[in-house]
């Protein structure tokens, strides 16, 4: 019985340590992500000016103050790709979001730097964001199921998805309302 408990403990420790080490890292670079999204069609690189009004809403979505005067994105037709960073617990997660016609086409974790919460990179999790829109009060219109032990990472990905939807809305709507 004792031996079984020791073996179970060893398994848990090894799983945590090795899992954490495996989970961390850069999975895809920015240029690779953009190339994958747009394929043969060359996207146009552009930026969205962060006016005080946009910053206020962006800060409300992110629940922190958003800095910078502009944010970079790539687009072709009605599709845009955004690469953003948000801190999960202590370190930033780099997230790529593709929007098509104001709906999320894809969410992809490009880099994860912390030792816990990396499960958000799994396609089974990110698939939940497909076809999601933003509501009038800047929340996602679909509930995203969390992952036990990755609450902060899930929250970060969800905030970035909402922000990308808002930015896309702003970038594809002219003039600014």
């Amino acid at each position: 019985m004792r031996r079984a408990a020791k073996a179970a403990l060893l398994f848990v420790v090894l799983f945590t340590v090795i899992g954490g080490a495996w989970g961390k890292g850069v999975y895809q670079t920015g240029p690779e992500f953009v190339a994958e999204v747009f394929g043969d069609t060359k996207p146009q690189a552009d930026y969205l000016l962060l006016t005080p009004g946009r910053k206020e809403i962006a800060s409300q979505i992110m629940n922190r103050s958003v800095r910078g005067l502009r944010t970079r994105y790539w687009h072709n037709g009605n599709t845009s790709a955004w690469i953003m960073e948000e801190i999960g617990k202590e370190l930033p997660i780099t997230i790529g979001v593709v929007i098509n016609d104001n709906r999320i086409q894809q969410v992809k974790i490009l880099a994860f730097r912390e030792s816990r919460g990396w499960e958000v990179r799994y396609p089974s999790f990110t698939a939940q964001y497909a076809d999601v829109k933003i509501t009038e009060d800047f929340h996602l219109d679909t509930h995203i199921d969390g992952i036990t032990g990755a609450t902060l990472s899930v929250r970060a990905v969800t905030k970035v998805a909402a922000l990308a939807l808002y930015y896309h809305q702003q970038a594809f709507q002219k003039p600014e309302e």
Partner: protein
Amino acid sequence: MPQRLRKIFLFNIKWHRRIGLGITIMLIFLAATGILLNHSPALNLADKHLKAPWLLNWYGLEHPQLEGVRIGDQWLSLSDNSLFLDTAPVATCPAPLHGAAGVPDMLLALCEDALLLLTPSGELIEKVDTFSGLPEGITRLQALNNQILISNAQQTYVIDPESLSISVRANIEDGWSTPTAVPDALFKQIDSSALPGISLESLILDLHSGRFFGAAGVWFVDIIGILLCVLALTGIWAWNSRRRLNGGGK
């Protein structure tokens, strides 16, 4: 019985006085630090940062070094991932600062794998990193004829800060910006809350609990606490004994 009681009373009062006198200074010190901690928010103790080298050494922190680049009459410098324009923190930037430069209407700071674009007043325009197309391993930056040049170990590039288009150009070896220590006069004026240091609140708390002196300090304060309890008990006992000796309490 009264004789025996009197002897115990005298023994008790003798030690009550000795303990009282012995811990007087510590009691005043603990009371004073306790009162300060109670009013810490009103006194803004958490916002007052101490940077004395001996104190930082005592806490095992390195004395903050500020390295920067002079651009015209301004300094862009970095300490502990905080980027400063002259005396004000303007952005976070992963250390080390490799270089900084200025072109008309824009300042640039090159940190580890990130190029920060700032307005002349220090407002962050955009952070460009390897995810937004900055080549890997860029460690050198300079402004040449209003062009922004960046370089890694293999190649020199020209980067357009508007479109972020990056083109290769012939390698050059001279003119790259190199951070140096900022002048003392500037360092002293820098917004100290953004530099690593010990807050006055933490220092007073550590002095109050004895932690400032390590485990021995904590034990010492524990002993003072125990002696204070003994003082209270011997005081009550002395008061009660005096009543009984004087025939009171009936």
